[in-house]
């Protein structure tokens, strides 16, 4: 068995897939710019921003960075640590709410 052949098959993809992803990234960036252009506000704005952001990030990682074609040993080592970041975000959301509360509270009540 020739591993080199396998590897080169895995690394050389048709040009079409790259052009498709490229085009999609342009379209998605245009859409996320439109979110600001039309001044959507509130939950609609935030959910649209996050939706386009994760879609773009996913496309870049999966196809441009070849994660879609990598073995699971590498993919899992790279993606599971992201849960630590998610935990950190939840912790800091609780933290900023508390800080904001105490700032406003002592502003009105006094120290």
């Amino acid at each position: 068995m020739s591993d080199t052949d396998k590897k080169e098959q895995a690394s050389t993809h048709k040009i079409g897939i790259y052009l498709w992803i490229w085009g999609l990234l342009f379209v998605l960036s245009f859409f996320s710019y439109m979110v600001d252009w039309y001044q959507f506000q509130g939950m609609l704005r935030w959910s649209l921003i996050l939706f386009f952001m994760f879609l773009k990030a996913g496309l870049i990682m999966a196809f441009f960075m070849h994660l879609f074609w990598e073995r699971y040993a590498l993919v899992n080592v790279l993606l599971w640590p992201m849960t630590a970041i998610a935990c950190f975000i939840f912790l800091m959301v609780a933290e900023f709410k508390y800080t904001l509360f105490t700032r406003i509270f002592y502003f009105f009540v006094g120290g």
Partner: protein
Amino acid sequence: MSEPKLEGIELKPGFKGMAEDTGSDQTMFKGVHWGKAMMWIFLLSDTFIFSCFLIAYMKGRGSTPVEWPNPSEVFALDAFGVPVPLLLIAIMTFVLITSSGTMALAVKYGYEKNRKMCGWLVLATAIGGLTFVGMQAFEWSKLIHEGVRPWENPFGAPQFGSFFFMITGFHGTHVSIGVIFLFIYAYKVFAGHYDQQKRGWFTSMKGNYVEIEILGLYWHFVDLVWVFIFAFFYLW
């Protein structure tokens, strides 16, 4: 880049394959060049650095009772006398995506050992990155002229400046380092270092087009970080 250890071993796909790769008492990332694995580990650590910056920004922005400057007004640019929101940022985003696309194609042509195409595409990527850094320098000087400082700004909450300069500055540093390496690698591709398997400066590793893929991973990561900065700092 065939590894002798891999010969005669059948690699299974999916989670079963992952269990066998991990428990094989051998190299874990099978068929992955060590340089590529190390670049991924570096990018993972870099992800944590940028996450910490963005989380600090979220915490700072969320915990101030003072109103946050409206980014779509702060970053507006006059085009023919009309202020267009986020115009420069949108152009920067498109430039960076363009350079990411040329890099992806450079990696593809590198693996096909198409020296000329690979070289031109790496060069195009470098020029795209240089354009991005130039526009960022313009944006910084514009904001500095308007009185934005890390400790104060005329638009609202004073924390805005410190987060802006820290986050975009760190990202711009990454882009600048990437541009330097892209120019070096464009030269190396054109000079045929990967076709002749010429050894590099820092390593005794034989030159191979996998190095273009490793550089590509770094460059796509820079684009990836910009996706998050664009969403959280400029659009939110």
